[in-house]
């Protein structure tokens, strides 16, 4: 980001507003029409009685929000969205930091290990989730088989991982963590390799042990990159509906429903566009907060 620092008036640095506008306009126009427009439309729908199949629209004020806020499934959805987002991110931060330390120094086979570790993030998530659905199958789950073999459960008595609300919530949370850990790990790894080697070495010479070096020197130096990993992790999990949709479709009895999956269930499957739009708008406040922090991180690192 050092480009802007020394403003030498060169030919190449000359401003040509017309050309830049012409080059930027197509992308800008597209984004305004297909991101900006639909976003406004979502707000508009949330205050209307729009339904699939209805041609007429009426303005209904806050009616959608009033009925949503009274619905128990909506309260569950908010609660679950927060549990999945924050809970999985805690698992992710701990695991990814450990993994990044373990992967930091070169060793034979690191390329292969990195490839295997990255799979959950790079494979299409709907396919990863269906893999988990098989691992958590109500009858043929390999996890249940292992637990039975270890005598934790009697045969045919292992729990239904996706069939009991608490276990289903835990399962979805862990599958979210499983998916984001690789992403956070590689980001943190990039942060670690960017720290000049002599700093932790100097600390070691001064007698600081491994943990002290990590917690008092390396991790504080990595704060910006750690925030980036956490912020993206929170956004990806909070706005995802694929994991829940594939694993439980929100069930049993809406117990794993999240804001996006409930919006889909009501808005598309239930044809109630207005309710769906109103529910998905509840994603916005947290997204705005996360975006604010993201910009702060970016700006601060630019100043340095």
């Amino acid at each position, binding site marked *: 980001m050092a480009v802007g620092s020394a403003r030498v008036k060169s030919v190449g640095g000359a401003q040509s507003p017309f050309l830049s506008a012409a080059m930027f306009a197509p992308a800008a126009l597209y984004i305004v029409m297909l991101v900006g427009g639909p976003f406004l439309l979502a707000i508009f729908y949330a205050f209307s009685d729009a339904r699939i199949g209805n041609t007429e629209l009426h303005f209904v004020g806050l009616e959608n929000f009033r009925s949503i806020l009274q619905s128990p499934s909506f309260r569950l959805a908010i609660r679950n969205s927060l549990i999945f987002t924050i809970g999985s991110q805690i698992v992710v931060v701990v695991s990814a930091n450990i993994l990044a330390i373990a992967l930091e120094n070169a060793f034979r086979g690191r390329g292969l290990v990195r*490839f295997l*570790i990255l799979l959950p993030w790079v494979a299409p998530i*709907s396919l990863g989730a269906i893999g988990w659905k*098989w691992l958590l199958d109500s009858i043929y789950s390999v996890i249940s088989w292992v637990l039975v073999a270890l005598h934790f459960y009697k045969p045919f008595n292992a729990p239904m991982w996706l069939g009991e609300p608490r276990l289903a919530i835990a399962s979805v949370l862990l599958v979210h963590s499983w998916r984001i850990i690789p992403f956070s790990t590689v980001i943190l790894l990039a942060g670690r390799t960017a720290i000049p080697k002599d700093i932790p070495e100097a600390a070691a010479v001064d007698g600081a042990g491994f943990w002290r070096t990590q917690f008092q020197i390396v991790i504080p130096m990595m704060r910006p990159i750690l925030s980036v990993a956490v912020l993206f992790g929170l956004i990806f999990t909070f706005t995802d*509906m694929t994991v829940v949709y594939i694993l439980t479709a929100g069930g049993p009895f809406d117990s794993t429903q999240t804001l996006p999956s409930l919006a889909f269930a009501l808005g598309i499957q239930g044809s109630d566009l207005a309710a769906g739009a109103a529910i998905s708008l509840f994603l916005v406040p947290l*997204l705005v907060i996360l975006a604010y922090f993201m910009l702060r991180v970016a700006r601060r*690192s630019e100043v340095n």
Partner: protein
Amino acid sequence: MPSKFTHGLFSKLVRAGVLAVFTILLAFPFYWMLITSFKQNVDLYTMENNPFLFNAKPTLDHLKFLFTETRFVRWLGNTAFVGVIVVVITLILAVPAAYALARLAGRWGERLGIAIFLTYLVPPTLLFIPLSRVIAFLGLQDSLWALILVYPTFTVPFSIWLLMGFFKSIPRELEDAAMVDGLTRFGAFLKLMIPISTSGILTVVIFTFTLVTQEFVYALTFISSESNQMIGTGIPIFLVRGDVYYWGALMAACLIASLPVAFLYNLFLDRFIAGFTVGAVK
């Protein structure tokens, strides 16, 4: 120093242990897909069998079923088709826009760059309901063109962001020299910047393509018929008939569809990280 030596050995063992545990936890579902793909149904659906072993002879039946009795190949084709066209659209929109923001627009470039970055944070789960009406209005329900129209909403912002960083890292003096030699600004962009930036552009191609294969929400909302599915929706939804899961074929399909994407992604991982870290790594 013997104490330091043993300490080194100990930490190596701990590290190997940590890596082994995490690698197994993270890669296990894919290993399980592999095993399941080659097991006979009698083997898969007998609870007394040790699922880690082949209790009956390995079989290619699931693969045969997948490639002959399902629309799997068609879904791969659909995904490739949508992927290629979205890549072309993304390049046409994002390359000039990123160059304009990186080079020409000065302080406005920075502000607009941030605005672009923010649009990347707007998730499909916020837009799919109004977009479903837009698609219906355009008569594109159940058409791959609906996806081609909508997918650039996330590939273009990400690509602009990635390419901006790339263009900024190229010294301005190169264009200055070219323009002194008589090229126009746009000529310098076409004949000098684009050839220099091949690796950045290739990165955008790869990531646009992988983002297309990974998408789920829009494909689920806009596409209804079996033959128009993408791999991400076709496999989990249409390989399940009623309540019957064809686990062998399902797992084979998941693995076959995942691996190429994973290979491509790994090749370009470092550039991809650079796109996400927003300059937080120096």
